[in-house]
């Protein structure tokens, strides 16, 4: 018994030494992206082999450039601190060998083979981006997340899901008028509110099987707000007036959280589920409030302006993005969840329905700045605003998915 223990100890020690020899450079976080003073990291990307190598390299370049953490430079131009080499072979499947080097310390950061069928090149490239991003920053990349959103015509409001960069849009719900929606925390299900047979009900769709089931149906208006574990917070006028309720994900155990004679709408859980943010017009105009998820400890968050709606938590729970009306137009703002540090992020056209990425670094929203409403992305300082949906399609109300396992 004693002997076995010591062998275990030796093995463990050897293992630790062996690993530390091999992975010393991997453990390094190259840039601290949480530091406000970080500088952009110069990266070069080179590729060879099959023609899809160029496409993969372009997707990875777009991913890394989007973050605002890297800037990609021509591999022939000196100055890169990180070099990414992509070598692609295609037989039946794509085989991509990816090597990432630290050119300053002359060490390998990543060396890995990826395979997939050719039609999933974008997924493969986003997977590579995620791995590179993780090795360099120590944080999870958002390159495989999705955006649910609404596509609208005069008589249709359909729920779609697309990649975070606007590619691969897919229809999810085409039955009834669908407007608001919320991801389950594991990203496996979408809850949504649809007007069917002259009433608004809350439904759930499983994204793997595409099975749909009703969750909450009643007279009047029922709008799903947010999901936390097995609990759903929603707005319902089942008793005559839009109030905030909480229930189980299967529609049982419905509890009233707020009671006023006015409008109470757009609730969502803080990331830890302990607080709820929502909109109420109890002061005479729509303003944003927070409360505990049992309805106690109510606090008003917004005081500036006479129209503040559509709140969305940041994933760390420290901030709330929302829409405020200023000079006759709707704009996206951020505020600390204690009410401080109000910042306006958009300035042209109407900008609505903000939703934060799971890493808290980016915001998806809709805007009519060029005519038809479309979906835009920006970082949480309002930089890098760009449209990701086609100009001729009316799209709105994006909701950023969680990370997928």
């Amino acid at each position: 018994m004693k002997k076995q223990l010591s062998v275990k100890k030796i093995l463990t020690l050897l293992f630790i030494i062996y690993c530390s020899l091999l992975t010393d450079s991997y453990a390094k976080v190259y840039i601290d992206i949480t530091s406000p003073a970080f500088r952009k990291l110069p990266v070069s990307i080179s590729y060879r082999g099959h023609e899809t190598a160029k496409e993969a390299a372009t997707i990875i370049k777009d991913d890394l450039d989007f973050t605002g953490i890297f800037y990609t430079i021509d591999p022939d131009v000196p100055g890169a601190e990180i070099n990414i080499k992509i070598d692609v072979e295609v037989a039946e499947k794509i085989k991509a060998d990816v090597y990432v080097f630290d050119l300053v310390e002359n060490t390998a950061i990543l060396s890995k083979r990826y395979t997939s069928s050719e039609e999933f090149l974008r997924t493969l490239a986003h997977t590579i981006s995620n791995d590179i991003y993780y090795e360099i920053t120590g944080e999870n990349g958002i390159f495989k997340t999705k955006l649910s959103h609404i596509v609208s015509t005069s008589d249709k409001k359909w729920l779609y899901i697309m990649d975070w960069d606007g590619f691969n849009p897919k229809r999810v719900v085409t039955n009834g008028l669908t407007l608001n929606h919320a991801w389950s925390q594991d990203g496996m299900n979408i809850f949504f509110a649809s007007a069917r047979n002259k009433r608004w009900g809350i439904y759930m769709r499983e994204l793997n099987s595409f099975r749909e089931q009703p969750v909450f149906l009643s007279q009047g208006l029922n709008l799903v707000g947010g999901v936390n574990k097995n609990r759903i917070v929603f707005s319902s006028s089942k008793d005559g007036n839009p109030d905030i309720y909480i229930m189980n994900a299967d529609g049982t155990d419905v509890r009233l959280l707020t009671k006023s004679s006015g409008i109470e709408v757009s609730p969502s859980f803080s990331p830890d589920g302990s607080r709820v943010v929502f909109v109420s017009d109890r002061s005479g105009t729509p303003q944003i409030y927070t409360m505990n998820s049992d309805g106690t400890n109510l606090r008003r968050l917004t005081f500036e302006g006479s129209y503040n709606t559509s709140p969305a938590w940041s994933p760390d729970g420290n901030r709330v993005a929302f829409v405020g009306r200023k000079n006759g137009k709707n704009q996206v703002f951020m505020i600390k969840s204690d009410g401080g540090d109000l910042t306006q992020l958009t300035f042209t056209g109407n900008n609505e329905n903000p939703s934060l990425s799971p890493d808290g670094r980016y915001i998806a929203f809709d805007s009519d700045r060029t005519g038809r409403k479309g979906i835009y992305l920006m970082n949480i300082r309002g930089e890098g605003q760009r449209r990701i949906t086609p100009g001729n399609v009316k799209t709105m109300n994006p909701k950023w998915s969680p990370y997928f396992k």
Partner: protein
Amino acid sequence: MKKSIFFILMTFILIVFAAGCTKQQVKTDLGTAEQQKAAQKKSDVMSESIYPVEAADRIPPSEKSLIDFKDVLFDYDKYDIRTDGRAVLDSITPWLNKNKETKVLIEGHCDERGTNEYNLALGEKRAAAAKAYLISQGISSARLSTISYGEEKPVCLGHDENCLQLNRRAHFVVTK
């Protein structure tokens, strides 16, 4: 003998461990085309990567009604019935009293200026206000139902105040 077996075992364990801690040539397979297709096929029944597109904005089709009542109009971001709205509702009441077999769906609508979700709640309050007034005039609540379409079904497509006013309304759909 015992020692050599132990040595082999230890070497083997070390190799396994080493494979666990190195990042060299770890293979990430995203699945075969067949596997991925099978996963997608389920969703392809309902999903195509196509957007419905309209060349220009149109006025959404409205529900058929047995009789066309005037709309009850509202102020911006308000849901209380104005004097002119009361007059509209008062003119509806006698017809409803005469035709007791009919049912009324009251649609609440908003102009485009607010945000979509808040406008759904605002439209609901407008429809509910019209419903409450009709009930106060003796119409049975069993004949009255409400639905809000927020800003999603405008009756006028312009952006001037005249159009916005026409869109801030409670609309009546009368059925048998």
